[in-house]
Each structure stands twice: as C-alpha cells, then as structure tokens.
C-alpha cells in the first residue's frame, strides 16, 4: 500500500487578509472582502469604472520583504508575490525553512493567465505610448511559471517544478499533481497551490464580457444570485510523506485522501452535470466519502445561476439523501473568485475549518433557491462533526477537480 501523504503547512493571501490564520479568522467571523473598487485604465484607456472586486487586504510586498529579509520591490508580478508569500508561510509552518529543500522537493502551483498586470503595463507602453521598448523583464514576470521558479529559487527546491493551468481549477490540478509526484516516488515533499492577480482594468473588462459577473456581490446558492466576483490572492499547502513529516517532528494538519479529475468536453462557460459529478465521484469513492456520516463540502459556489444549480444537482446526484448531512460552504462569497488560486485558497480555509470543527458561513445570502437544496451553512459559523473534506473547482472550458482530505 502506498505511503500516506499528509498536509504539514498552509499559507494564504486574499481579500480576507495576509496569512492562513487571518483568512480563517475572517471567514469564520463572516467578514467579507468584496467591495467596490475604481479601476483606472490610464491615459490611453476608456473612462475609469467602479466595479466590485475582492482585492488583497494588506501590503503583500512588505509582508514578503519582512518574511524573506530582503527587498522585493517591483521585481515580481503580484501573482508571483502572492504565491511566494503563501509558500513561505506554509513552509514555515511545516518547519522547512532554513536549509535548501533539495532534489526531493517539488513545487507545483497553478494560475489561469500569468502576470496580467505586468503584461498590461507593457502593452500600454507599446500600443498606447508607442514606446519601442518594454521592460526587459516582461517575459519572466509574465510567464505562468514565474511563481514556481520564484519559489524554487527562494527555497532551493531542485526536484520537479512546474506550473499547472486550467483556468478556475488551476490550483486544484496543482495540488493533485503534487500528491501524484509524491505517490509516484518522484518527490518526498511538494509545495502546491496557486495564485492569480487578474484584477487589472482590462482584466476586469474581459471578465465582464463573459456576462458572468455580478454587478453587486457573490451570493452562492442564493435566490437572486447574479454572478461571480473577481478576487485576487494565492494559497499554498505543503504535502509530504508521513515518514518525512514524522522524521522532522512536523505535526500532520490533515491527511491527503485523493483527487478526482475530469473534463466536460462540452462548453466554454456552461458546466456539465456528468463532468462535475465524475470528478467528485473519483475523489470521494476511494476515500470512502460516499458512505461518510458527515463530509464538509467546500463548494465551487461561484454565485453564477448555472454553476450553483449544476453543483447542487451534482452533489445531490452523488450523495443522494446523505447530502442532507453534509454542510456546504462557499467561501468565494467572502474572498471572491481567485480564479487559478481558488481551489488552494478554499482548501486552506476548509482544512482549518475541519481542524477547528466549525464551518464558516456563506455570505450575502438572500433566500432559498429550490434548485440549490443543500445543507448550506448560513448566518454564522456552525459546529460540525465532519472528519473529511471535499473541495470542488470547476473551470471555464469544462475542467474539473475535486480534492479529498481527512482530518488528522
């Protein structure tokens, strides 16, 4: 039998704050990070527009400079800053700072689009100012693998290092890949997760074009829900062999129980019941979650009419009447949709909820939608008896990931 893989470190950066503890505290307290922000497209763009978004709370660059003890300045795009800060936090908790991580350490982080803010600035210069040169480090700052390279260089990880990209499921695929590398014997430790920083003036307009954005806020599974809210941030987990954690005396925060991966092969923006159910089933079946008395479910819960209806039907289809006993949370109502970083951020918050025995409330709920008949955690944090966790991430383009964990 394959050796057990455990979680030994967590890190998070989002509109709820800097650090996993602060993210959990805010989520548990029912504090939301969604607010109207002015997006200023500069002298060559159209008039500025105020749009609701969930921007990172706190100075992530200053926090990273303090954590690493050196200057960072503008040398990295925000999506790499968030990933590096979350990875530092997770590695610190796992007791892995200090010596280089070495060749038995993997780094796999996901993001949907790379360093969009850097790219926008470069294109503003090129197309708007008609400058012949753009910043010479535009490419390494923009590339989707910038966060994993930054993490590998910072912490001396010389094993398998790469990025995953699957839109809103990117960090879900990263977590699954990290665990798979350990299971395949290619690494003992994996820093996994993801990040995104798409809340730029043109990035916001691009999202609006999809007709999937709410003009107000994110109301998962609620009547009157009208779309998603863009968030930014990142999250990281340290996965490792149980023997590796024990040898270092690092406490296991949770046990990895498996992943389900599927593709709808169907539509750019509409989910498929078969595809999302297939991912959940693949994650739940081997881990025994289908028969579990109570499972904490961190839903994809974007707040779009179609996603939430489909996800509710998929959970019903998979768990049947047992779904009544499974508390469903939807933390995007607090931290927005962090796109490629969402799955990892939701995993971090939900793992802390599992450990604490308390589920954080879904925010902005207006009233019941009969098509979302689930045991939603509403109003305030609720005590839970769940010993296992399912995290869902369903991406545009039909790419689905479900992650399963068991309480340590």
């Amino acid at each position, binding site marked *: 039998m394959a050796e057990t893989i455990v979680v030994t470190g967590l890190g998070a950066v989002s509109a709820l704050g800097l650090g996993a503890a602060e993210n959990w505290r805010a989520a548990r307290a029912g504090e939301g990070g969604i607010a109207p922000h002015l997006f200023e497209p500069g002298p060559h763009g159209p008039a500025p527009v105020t749009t609701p978004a969930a921007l990172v709370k706190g100075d992530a660059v200053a926090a990273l400079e303090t954590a690493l003890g*050196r*200057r*960072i*300045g503008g*040398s990295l795009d925000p999506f790499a800053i968030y990933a590096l800060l979350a990875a530092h936090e997770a590695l610190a908790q796992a007791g892995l700072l200090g010596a280089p991580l070495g060749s038995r350490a993997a780094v796999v982080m996901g993001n949907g689009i790379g360093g969009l803010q850097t790219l926008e600035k470069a294109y503003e210069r090129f197309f708007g100012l008609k400058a012949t*040169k753009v*910043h*010479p*480090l535009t490419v390494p700052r923009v590339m989707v693998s910038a966060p994993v390279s930054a993490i590998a260089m910072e912490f001396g990880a010389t094993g398998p290092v790469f990025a995953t990209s699957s839109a809103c499921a990117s960090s879900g695929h990263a977590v699954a890949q990290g665990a798979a590398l350990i299971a395949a014997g290619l690494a003992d430790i994996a820093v996994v997760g993801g990040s995104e920083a798409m809340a730029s003036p043109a990035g916001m307009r691009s999202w609006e074009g999809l007709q999937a954005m709410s003009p107000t806020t994110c109301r998962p599974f609620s009547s009157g829900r009208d779309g998603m809210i863009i968030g930014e941030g990142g999250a990281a987990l340290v996965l490792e062999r149980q023997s590796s954690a024990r040898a270092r005396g690092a406490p296991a925060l949770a046990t990895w129980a498996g992943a389900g991966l599927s593709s709808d092969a169907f539509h750019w923006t509409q989910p498929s019941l078969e595809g999302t159910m297939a991912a959940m089933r693949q994650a739940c079946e081997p881990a025994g979650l289908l028969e579990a008395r109570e499972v904490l479910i961190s839903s994809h819960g974007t707040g779009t009419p179609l996603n939430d209806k489909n996800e509710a039907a998929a959970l019903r289809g998979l768990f049947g009447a047992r779904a009544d006993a499974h508390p469903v949370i939807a933390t995007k109502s607090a931290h927005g949709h962090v796109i490629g970083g969402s799955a990892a951020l939701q995993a971090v918050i939900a793992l802390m909820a599992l450990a604490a025995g308390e589920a954080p409330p879904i925010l902005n709920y207006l009233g019941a939608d009969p098509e979302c008949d689930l045991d939603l955690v509403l109003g305030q944090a609720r005590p839970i008896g769940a010993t296992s966790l399912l995290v869902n991430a369903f991406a545009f383009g039909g790419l689905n990931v479900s992650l399963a964990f068991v309480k340590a």
Partner: protein
Amino acid sequence: MAGHEDELIEIIAEESLIDRAKLDPAAKLEDIGLDSVDLVSVIFAIEEKYGVEIAEDAFSREDTLAKVLAKIEALIDAKGA
C-alpha cells in the same frame, strides 16, 4: 553638467535590489553584484526617466560604477543641450 548621481544610484539600487550602501563608485559592476539582468533593468529605468537611449552594449560588467555614471551623465547632458 553633472548632478544626477544621487538619482542614478537610487535607480540602480531600486532596480537591482542591491543595498545603496554597497554601490561604491570605485567598484566594478560585477563586484557590486550587478548581473546582466539587473543591468538591462537599470538601463530601461534610466531611459524611462531621462528620455535617453542607451546602447545595449554601452556598459560591461568590468566597468566601474563611476565610469557608468559618467557615461549616463554625458547622455543626459547631450539630451538637454
């Protein structure tokens, strides 16, 4: 006409993330720890600020910081003239 030295050193420190105190004018760029990637970022930032054009091969890592600063000052002066 000189007079941009402070600003230039500030830009170099900012772009290379090297502590200002280590930017000794008598030292060679390579001894300061300024690598080729830092150098292109520094050149870009200076071009941005002063509207000058600096050739890709204007400096070598063998050059002292003082020599680099003098060359940039001359470009800025020529531009202003």
